[in-house]
């Protein structure tokens, strides 16, 4: 493991207390943006301001516990990386539906159940890869982003069954808040860029105050509330509904995929020699993430999930030390006893909350697109993505499409996240029929065409949904090996190429009648390379060995075979 140059304090390094506290404050500042989510859920359930404030407090407690569990590895829990949880849009979307249909008890019961599902998924992450390939993972993230943006629009412009209720002043506040966030993100530097959402929200609050959008009763409630108080658990209860659990199950899958991505990013950020994901720490991280959501549901808070923004902040500052978790947790716990904080978010003007959701949705949408296209796509995968997108968007645009179903299912299937994901999962499983796991090609001696070899692996890679970088390495090995065999091994007949793939391994075997290809473990010297073609062939063999994860050569009865193994 090698510490990258841009890292000041790596995950396992201690740091001065002052820097730890300052980093902790930065992280909490970033996390606090998302405290609007419990307030939105409380409002959707028709709860009082006091209950909303209590939900914020218990969300802070859940975040504090979740941070320690995730960042400080304890027993089987925790990745050990600074990717602590936040209240997440992943659980916001189904929570709003559940709040409207069954109130807060349904939200908390289903959140608890979703956390348990996340914990179960963490134990079988490797086996899930064929069922949850990147195009599905990316679709889920994309739908989360779309749903977030749609919710943001509904909140900002007060769009309901009767149409839009927002007036010109509300629209102005929305646009000004969004403009501030966007402007700072695009042109801002340093802290201004990092905290663009918080600053934008402050701008929204200020404009709302100037325009008289705060009711006197809200301001009275805020000033009259205690400065320090124990939050009241009296509102907490739990219910369960099988149909309503479906969107929470989809959210649990999305949350698991997100923590997987975040821990992988943290692994890369901490190790300049990173080659592939360490599934052990990913699995531990997913388990801790699930436990955090269970605790949140148990305490009367919405589901929480690892924060991509936190990962980004750590990378940007170079402070990746897990010891920052202690001040983060301490500050969060202190804030939990300040009821004014929860009420401050409760009185947040709807246009400000809506603008924050719209702004956040943009990054989630693009992140989903990047995940979807991280692998090679063929017609199967294109259809999975395209048809799922159309299905998901259709129910958002034409809710009448699901009006015929039972009312419980209507709420479930009427969201793009659930319907789009279910369609994607079903199509992915269906289209796996007929995918051949082995591709074969014959290379004649008299017409070596490197382009055809490239195209062969490109086609196979797309059909398999293989990772682009692994196919790139395999392409080099295939072309270079055949080039060298033809020039230096005197093959007596055509070369046969067999490419075999499962979700974890890509094997390329080149077989031919002729002398074996030398694959030296040490690099030939520059003088040897320049001296003759033999030196050039030795260099080729060295590169072939280094590019594959494993090589195996056999030579039996005049027949040679080379196997290049790539871990996927």
């Amino acid at each position: 493991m090698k510490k990258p140059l841009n890292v000041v304090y790596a995950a396992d390094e201690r740091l001065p207390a002052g820097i730890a506290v300052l980093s902790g404050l930065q992280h909490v500042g970033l996390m606090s943006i998302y405290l609007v989510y419990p307030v939105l859920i409380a409002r959707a359930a028709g709860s009082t301001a006091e209950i909303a404030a209590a939900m914020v407090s218990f969300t802070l407690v859940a975040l504090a516990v979740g941070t320690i569990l995730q960042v400080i590895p304890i027993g089987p829990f925790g990745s050990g990386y600074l990717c602590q949880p936040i209240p997440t849009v992943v659980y916001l979307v189904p929570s709003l539906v559940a709040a409207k249909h069954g109130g807060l008890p349904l939200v908390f019961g289903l959140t608890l159940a979703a956390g348990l599902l996340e914990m179960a998924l963490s134990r079988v992450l490797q086996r899930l890869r064929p069922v949850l390939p990147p195009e599905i993972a990316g679709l889920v993230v994309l739908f989360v982003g779309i749903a977030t943006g749609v919710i943001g629009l509904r909140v900002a412009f007060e769009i309901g069954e009767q149409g839009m209720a927002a007036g010109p002043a509300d629209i102005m506040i929305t646009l000004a808040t969004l403009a501030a966030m966007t402007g700072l993100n695009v042109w801002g530097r340093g802290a201004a860029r990092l905290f663009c959402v918080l600053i934008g929200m402050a701008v929204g609050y200020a404009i709302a105050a100037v325009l008289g959008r705060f009711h006197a009763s809200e301001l009275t409630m805020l000033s009259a509330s205690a400065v320090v108080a124990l939050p009241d658990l009296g509102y907490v209860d739990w219910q369960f509904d099988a149909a309503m659990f479906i969107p929470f199950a989809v959210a649990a899958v999305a949350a698991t995929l997100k923590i997987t991505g975040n821990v992988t990013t943290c692994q890369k950020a901490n190790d300049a020699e990173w080659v592939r994901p360490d599934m052990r720490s990913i699995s531990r991280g997913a388990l801790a993430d699930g436990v955090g959501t269970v605790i949140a549901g148990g305490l009367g808070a919405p589901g929480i999930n690892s924060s991509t923004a936190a990962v980004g902040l750590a990378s940007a500052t170079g402070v990746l030390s897990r010891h920052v978790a202690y001040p983060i947790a301490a500050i969060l716990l202190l804030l939990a006893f300040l009821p004014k904080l929860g009420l401050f978010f409760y009185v947040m003007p709807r246009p400000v909350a809506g603008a924050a959701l719209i702004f956040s949705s943009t990054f989630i949408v693009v992140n989903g697109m990047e995940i979807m296209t991280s692998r090679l796509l063929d017609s199967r995968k294109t259809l999975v993505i395209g048809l799922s997108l159309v299905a998901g968007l259709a129910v958002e645009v034409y809710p009448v499409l699901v009006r015929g179903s039972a009312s419980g299912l209507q709420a479930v299937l009427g969201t793009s996240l659930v319907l789009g994901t279910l369609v994607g999962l079903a199509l992915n499983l269906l289209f796996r029929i007929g995918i051949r796991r082995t591709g074969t090609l014959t290379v004649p001696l008299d017409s070596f065409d490197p382009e055809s070899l490239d195209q062969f692996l490109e086609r196979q890679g797309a059909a398999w949904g293989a990772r682009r970088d692994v196919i790139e390495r395999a392409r080099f090995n295939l072309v270079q090996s055949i080039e060298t065999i033809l020039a230096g091994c005197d093959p007596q007949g055509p070369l046969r190429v067999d490419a075999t793939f499962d979700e974890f391994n890509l094997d390329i075997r080149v077989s031919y009648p002729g002398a074996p290809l030398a694959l030296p473990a040490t690099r030939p010297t520059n003088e040897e390379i320049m001296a003759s073609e033999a030196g050039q062939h030795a260099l080729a063999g060295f590169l072939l060995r280094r590019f594959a994860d494993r090589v195996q050569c056999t030579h039996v009865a005049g027949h040679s075979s080379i196997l290049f193994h790539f871990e996927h």
Partner: protein
Amino acid sequence: MDLRQDSKEGVVVLDVIGRMDSSAAPLLQDRLTAVMAEPRARVLIDLAKLDYISSAGFRILLLAAKRADETGCRFVLCGISGRVRQLFDVGGFLELFSIAETREEGVAAAAG
């Protein structure tokens, strides 16, 4: 492989486009031999549009660098990125050549 030759500030700039493999490498070798026939020639090879390089390509570059040392020529590479850069790295070639990040820097380095 396509080779395009240009001249800038007294530096011969060669754009290598496509694949540099055993069939294409002699073409580059012949061109470099011609260009470096000039005493104290200044040569920049831009690999930004190179899709693939094999051991044959590396050998030609090594021979060119050696000839440059022997004849007092300046020999610089630029535009190395992505998979090609990874090959240079794995093959231990990043430290062997004078490599510039951009074409402009390459011209400046070759011009001296």
